């Protein structure tokens, strides 16, 4: 097993897994505690439009996702906050429009789209160094923004209305948070693909919050769990020659089931058992 680490593709895969873990471990906690899983799923799927855009212009599809997923995040946020369209309806509509645009862009692109499946379901073993650099930059952006705005994000996650009454521009903060989710989606695309992104945005945080009760410790535990799930999934994928993205998701999902069952077992007296996601 150790000898495979000397291959560049394996080194890149591990670095990608680590960067993805940092991004989704931190942002996933906001997604779970603020209960914005659905809009995050919407942003992730709509991001497929960006992949199509990349193919269409002949650039790195992951680079195409950056502007497209941010545009999707902003439009979902603004439409759901400012119009009278119910939030989940607006997200559902923008979700499918993003994906449909992706399909059209791919169809309009010259030639074949050979790696399309990898962008949909992840292909961590084929991450080029250029994408690693992009992922690194985005991870630094995500960490810096969270570091400077954590108290604001915590306040709008806990009670957005109260923050508004304090005179805080909660809508703008919410949009910034959605943009961070969009950037996290970009970081995760190579690892699990747009379809499976939501697994890493929710499962590690959902497990962590069962065991610890401050945002910071949940984030640290999520990053750690995410790293275990991605490398574990990678190992299973290598050992059994099965798709890596799906293996990562199955490892995460299994871990979630086991943790939830352990929590649900008749606990010792005085032990806290209730949790919700």
């Amino acid at each position, binding site marked *: 097993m150790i000898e495979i680490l000397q291959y560049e593709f394996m080194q890149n895969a591990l670095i990608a897994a680590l960067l993805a873990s940092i991004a989704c471990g931190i942002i996933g906690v906001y997604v779970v505690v603020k209960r914005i899983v659905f809009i995050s799923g919407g942003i992730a799927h709509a991001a497929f439009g960006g992949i199509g855009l990349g193919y269409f212009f002949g650039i790195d599809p992951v680079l195409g996702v950056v502007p497209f997923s941010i545009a999707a995040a902003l439009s979902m946020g603004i439409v759901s906050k400012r119009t009278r369209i119910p939030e989940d309806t607006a997200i559902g509509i923008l979700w499918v429009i993003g994906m449909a645009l992706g399909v059209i862009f791919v169809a309009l692109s010259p030639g074949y789209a050979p790696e399309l499946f990898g962008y949909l379901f992840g292909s961590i073993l084929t991450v080029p160094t250029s994408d690693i650099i992009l992922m690194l930059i985005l991870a630094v952006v995500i960490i810096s923004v969270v570091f400077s705005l954590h108290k604001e994000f915590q306040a709008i996650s806990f*009670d957005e209305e109260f923050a508004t009454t304090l005179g805080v521009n909660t809508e703008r903060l919410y949009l910034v948070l959605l943009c961070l989710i969009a950037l996290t989606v970009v970081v995760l695309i190579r690892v699990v693909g747009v379809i499976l992104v939501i697994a890493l945005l929710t499962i590690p945080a959902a497990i962590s919050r069962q065991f610890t009760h401050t945002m910071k410790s*949940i984030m640290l535990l999520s990053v750690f769990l995410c790293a275990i799930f991605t490398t574990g999934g990678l190992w299973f994928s290598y050992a059994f020659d099965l798709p890596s993205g799906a293996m990562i998701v199955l490892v995460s999902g299994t871990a979630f089931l086991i943790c939830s069952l352990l929590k649900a077992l008749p606990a010792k007296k005085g032990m806290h058992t209730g949790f919700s996601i």
Partner: protein
Amino acid sequence: MQHERTIVKLEDVWVLFDGVSVLEEVNLSINQHDFLGIIGPNGGGKTTLLKVILGLLKPSRGQVSVFGHTPERGRKFVGYVPQYSLFDREFPVNVLNVVLMGRLKHAKRFKRYSEEDKEIAYEALETVEMHDFKDAQIGKLSGGQQQRIFIARALVAERKLLLLDEPMASVDSPMQTELYELFEKLRHQMAIVLVSHDISAVSIYVDKIACLNRKLFYHNTKELTAEDFEATYQCPVEIIAHGVPHRVLREHK
């Protein structure tokens, strides 16, 4: 009492949701030292009225002035304790950090809360007698204790008017008395508006009562007649008056 400054003024305020009126021609003045109780049935527009004052809802018609400004600009003088049931009790945050959220606008942007913010938060926790719980996760506290924390959160914002939405919901009786005593203490520092569907308890402590059921019935006193209640609830109401050794209960027509 004549020379008191009016801090909030609502004139002919209407709020319609999809053409259905929730508030109708509401006129209300709140003075500097008021302790006003607003009572009315569930769905009578009590929360809506508070949200209009806070600028969270724009009235369909009418004028609202909060400390001489529009509600959006005047809200920096208004503290708010929302209805307890709206919170996610599993939220991973401790008591101190919930209280600190009230300092969000005072704290420097891009920085953590300062030592001064923390001092003020500790003081507020002393005021509501919850200092020992500062490290507890908010969801582990009882309803009444959580209510105290949300009051502390409103206090650290250092406002001149405190709006309390159903502060006694899910609070047991002994704790209710303690909370009212806390309001007694706070009323010397700020005006208080307390909204409740529970007529009996409110009336002992407040010095003015208004009834709200789409329309507001307000006489600038604490004295209420059965007619006021009937106008509000649109049916005879049981009034259990404290200190009065009988109750008024009339037949339905």
